[in-house]
């Protein structure tokens, strides 16, 4: 299913960050979003996920809008992974339990996030540690693995490898190579490696 965005308008307060932005993501395709800090990259991802309201424009997945699909189902298909990876109560394994019981995800076939994260060098034992004891890089891989394992139609990734070493970064890129992504990165080399198309903001 293609994600199509047409004529998007993004505002923060009374500042217009983008106006008339078009974007299209085909199956298995990665679109890299680049631009200076504060240019609206994060707002764009959050708006595509329906977490922030858009000031204008229209987003569809296949031929359906978020309203037609219902916002929770939309987000299960168009899944955002935050740049700031929050610690949560309990352990990542507890989080998996909560996520697995969400109404919008119950009927989905999911892959095993533990196996996915393990291919990125995350120790199996990390899933049973309290979040407070995990490093930034470990948290980042947990959140990313949970999102990837849900097989969303499109992943919205905000600096997904910012806390990872080069080896883990390459492993993540390999996993995501055949997924549809909108990918924000400051790293020009990474952009060159993963991008099918590039959108410049600001």
């Amino acid at each position, binding site marked *: 299913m293609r994600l199509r965005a047409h004529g998007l308008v993004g505002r923060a307060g009374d500042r217009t960050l983008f106006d008339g932005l078009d974007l299209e993501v085909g199956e298995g395709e990665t679109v890299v979003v680049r631009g200076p800090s504060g240019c609206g990259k994060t707002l764009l991802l959050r708006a595509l996920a329906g977490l922030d309201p858009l000031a204008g424009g229209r987003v569809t997945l296949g031929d359906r809008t978020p309203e037609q699909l219902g916002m*929770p189902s939309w*987000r299960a298909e168009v899944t955002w*992974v*935050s740049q*700031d990876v929050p610690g949560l109560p309990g352990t990542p394994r507890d989080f998996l339990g909560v996520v697995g019981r*969400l109404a919008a995800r119950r009927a989905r076939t999911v892959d095993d996030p533990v196996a996915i994260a393990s291919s990125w060098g995350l120790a199996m034992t990390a899933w049973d540690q309290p979040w407070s004891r995990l490093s930034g890089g470990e948290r980042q891989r947990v959140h990313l693995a949970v999102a990837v394992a849900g097989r969303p139609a499109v992943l919205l990734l905000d600096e997904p490898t910012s806390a990872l070493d080069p080896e883990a970064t390459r492993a993540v890129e390999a996993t995501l190579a055949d997924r549809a992504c909108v990918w924000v990165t400051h790293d020009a080399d990474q952009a060159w490696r993963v991008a099918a198309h590039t959108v410049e903001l600001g």
Partner: protein
Amino acid sequence: MTGPVPIGPGQLALGASLLIAHGLLSLGLQLGLERKLLIAGVRTVVQLLLMGWLLVPVFASGSAALVLGVCTVMIVLAARESVGRVSRRYRGIQVAATVALFVAGGSTALLASGVILAVDPWWSPQYLIPMLGMILGNALTGISLGLDRALAELDEGRGRVEALLALGATRWEASRPVAAEALRTGLVPILNAMSAVGLVTIPGMMTGQILGGTEPSLAARYQILILFLIAFATALGTGLSVLFALLAVFDDQHRLRGERISTRGS
């Protein structure tokens, strides 16, 4: 059993002289509390005499409208007090707290006077007004603690809530941990009070009834009833307040609208 010994101006003055000892202590140790002590002492006298003086005609009137009017004023004041203790705001928080206290406090007090005690008439001020007062005084603490906790978590813990929203959680699924924690926080004081009661202190209402000449075992049964009423009203009031806060801070597209929470004074 006899009624209480009457207290006249002379006895009150004797009681007030205890504050002078308090003031001398403050002067001697240079605590700087004399002014505060004076103001607090005067407020105690004025507020309580005024309340007693106002309640006399209400009790004597035999007018349901007047009694229920006093109850409404009590609820509105309690709601103001509860919101005043919360460090964050959302639009409509005052109305929401009033509705929560109206439903929780009002229904509990009416249940007690009309059904459990079945006093005649059901609005009998001797029962309704003091019970409502005790219920409101405790429920407003639960509401302010619970609301404060919920709004703080939605504000500072936005990332945690959105981590769930982003994976397809509804606003209710995503805010469940927040609501649970807020309710727990709001109910701690009454649960503590219920566990500790009677071990160390004789609670205020029971003290009052015993001084008023009620047999201690009957006073104890009244105290048990009022604690259960308070616990129910606190749970209901806190639950409603947290629900109203969630409805105000999330929109119908399951978005957490952080800009709808303001910190006090901003």
